[in-house]
């Protein structure tokens, strides 16, 4: 398979305190404050690829940098460092404002968390879906109407609902509008930021099945951001696990969830409530994550919260290491590797 998206060493840092503008910088210089502001490492040196037609899940707790990473990939914000390539074309060099009118803008689209908040309340469903078509495909008149109706039908949105405003639609219908809007311009990569978080289970199922169907019909790749591991397990081929701005584990979804190698993933998997509880003592993660402000580059980000942590975790940052298709950034990953089969 060929790579659709290649992300290499992407970082996004935000300065904190004082404000970034020239006046603030001027004031700092003459008040004897630090020249350089401390920085939040929201995304720190992240690399991965998405292949054509693949569904990749991105999981992690709130504040781990999932959304920042996703916004950087969709070129809504500029990265501090690193490269983002779509079909070998470098995207990260153009400022996000310029990219908004780029020819590749239509190829990466995004479905936001709650369509009730992310769709303009003054736009009808029709206008919401038509907006990207007008801007990026320059469609007008009948061609526009035809395209909007086609997409709406594809997403299972009854045509008579197209004249309604977001507040007149149910949660499931709004989710469909959000999806229709994103796929209207025929993207190659669809980034979904917790598309079902606000929905009830019964509706969630329908939306997930819709996404599954659309993927095979249109042949898109998905980056699926979620904190619901049981959904990621069902929908995704591969998962990336993020912790404090870094990818700590990645691999085929089934393998990562059945045999997590990183202690954080283990805690994450253990924390998912199951319908049929086995009563096994579960691993619990307590405490708060380390501060993301100028973190020590030599200390594992998970140190302090990690049940396995030792002194070496304080002196060397573990790198992502390969174990077949499985990658993990932990010094002790070998301990959790499945034992090689022995013939008895």
């Amino acid at each position, binding site marked *: 398979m060929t790579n659709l998206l290649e992300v290499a060493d992407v970082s996004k840092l935000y300065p904190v305190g004082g404000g970034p503008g020239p006046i603030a910088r001027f004031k700092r210089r003459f008040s004897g404050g630090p020249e350089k502001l401390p920085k939040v490492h929201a995304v720190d040196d992240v690399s991965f690829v998405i292949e054509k037609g693949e569904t990749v899940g991105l999981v992690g707790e709130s504040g781990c940098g999932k959304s920042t990473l996703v916004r950087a990939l969709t070129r809504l914000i500029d990265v501090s460092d690193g490269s983002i390539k779509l079909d070998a074309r470098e995207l990260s060099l153009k400022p996000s404002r310029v990219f908004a009118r780029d020819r590749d803008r239509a190829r990466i689209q995004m479905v936001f968390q709650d369509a009730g908040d992310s769709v303009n309340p003054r736009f009808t469903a029709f206008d919401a879906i038509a907006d990207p078509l007008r801007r990026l495909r320059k469609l007008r008149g009948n061609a526009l109407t035809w395209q909007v109706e086609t997409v709406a039908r594809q997403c299972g949105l009854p045509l008579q609902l197209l004249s309604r405003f977001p507040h007149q639609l149910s949660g499931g219908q709004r989710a469909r509008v959000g999806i229709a809007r994103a796929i209207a311009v025929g993207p190659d990569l669809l980034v979904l930021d917790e598309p079902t978080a606000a929905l009830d289970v019964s509706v969630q*199922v329908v939306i997930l099945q819709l996404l599954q169907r659309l993927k095979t019909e249109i042949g898109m790749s998905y980056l699926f951001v979620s904190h619901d591991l049981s959904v990621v397990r069902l929908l995704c081929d591969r998962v990336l696990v993020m912790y404090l701005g870094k990818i700590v584990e990645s691999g085929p979804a089934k393998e990562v969830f059945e045999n997590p190698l990183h202690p954080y993933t283990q805690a994450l998997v253990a*924390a998912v*409530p199951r*319908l049929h509880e086995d009563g096994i003592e579960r691993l619990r993660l307590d405490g708060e994550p380390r501060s993301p402000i100028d973190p020590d580059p030599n200390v594992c980000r998970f140190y302090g919260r990690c049940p396995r942590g030792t002194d070496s975790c304080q002196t060397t940052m573990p790198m992502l290491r390969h174990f077949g298709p499985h990658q993990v950034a932990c010094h002790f990953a070998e301990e959790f590797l499945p034992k090689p089969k022995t013939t008895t």
Partner: protein
Amino acid sequence: MTATPALDVEGLSVEFRTRSGIVRALDNVSFAVDKGETIALVGESGSGKSVTAYAVMGILDPAGKVTAGRAMLGGLDLLSAKPSQLADVRGREIAMIFQNPRTALNPIRTVGRQIADVLIRHGNVPRRDAPAQAVEMLRAVGITDPARRANVYPFEMSGGMCQRVMIAIALAAKPLLLIADEPTTGLDVTTQAVIMDLVNDLAKEMGMATIFITHDLALAGQRSSRIVVMHAGHVVENAPTKELFEHPRHPYTAELIAATPDAAASLDELASIPGSLPDLRRTDLPPCRYSERCPRKVESCARPLPHAGADTAHIVACWNPLS
């Protein structure tokens, strides 16, 4: 079963007057929770889980009105009690943990002070000792460095920490009954597990009855001994957790279980529930509010719902239940 349950709700009905008509939010809701027991109220949004809790606590929106029913806490009927009586009961005997700790906490008071307030008002703690005891409460809910944290404001804490403070406030006066309304929505799964452990442990320690409201069936199954399934303002099934999962009898419960992603091996296996909740403003609501979505509808569904006797452990409000 013990002789007197901690809370016994019987025939609770609630209506809301709105501009577009009367919403029959709850109809004949009955359930009981024993001392030291944890039950879960489960259902989709709009099924009336939270309204049930608010009615019991006496904090319904002014547009809402209890039209029938009793909620016995010890010898006191909470639904007909005077506001002054209720004010004494709330906090001391029943406490509630709200969905969003950030909006439920007072933003302009330090968390230590908020806990101290409850201790002074409901816990018979002298004003002088309250701050020190508030710090102890923070320690009990697992907040590190409680003496310093007592002096911070809610916005300075993470969501998980705020929820711990909510729990500390709720448990400060050692209530008999705790109502937790989606206490972990919006928290990460890892934090959710820790917070739920904490609630379970403290409840066990204090012998407290807990009503746990959630839409997450898997979480309810993990944390409660009995599950009450609600749909459109009706209790459709009420059974011990294990039995409910193994032998759901109401068609809606069965569909809910089949729609939960955890159980399935693939997406195609997941079942969706056809239709949506009926409009509760309708005057021609059928006796069974699920009947219009139900695959097992029979003729007798047009008759008033059957209500199994209160002595059976597994109650199902259906004419044609799964066996």
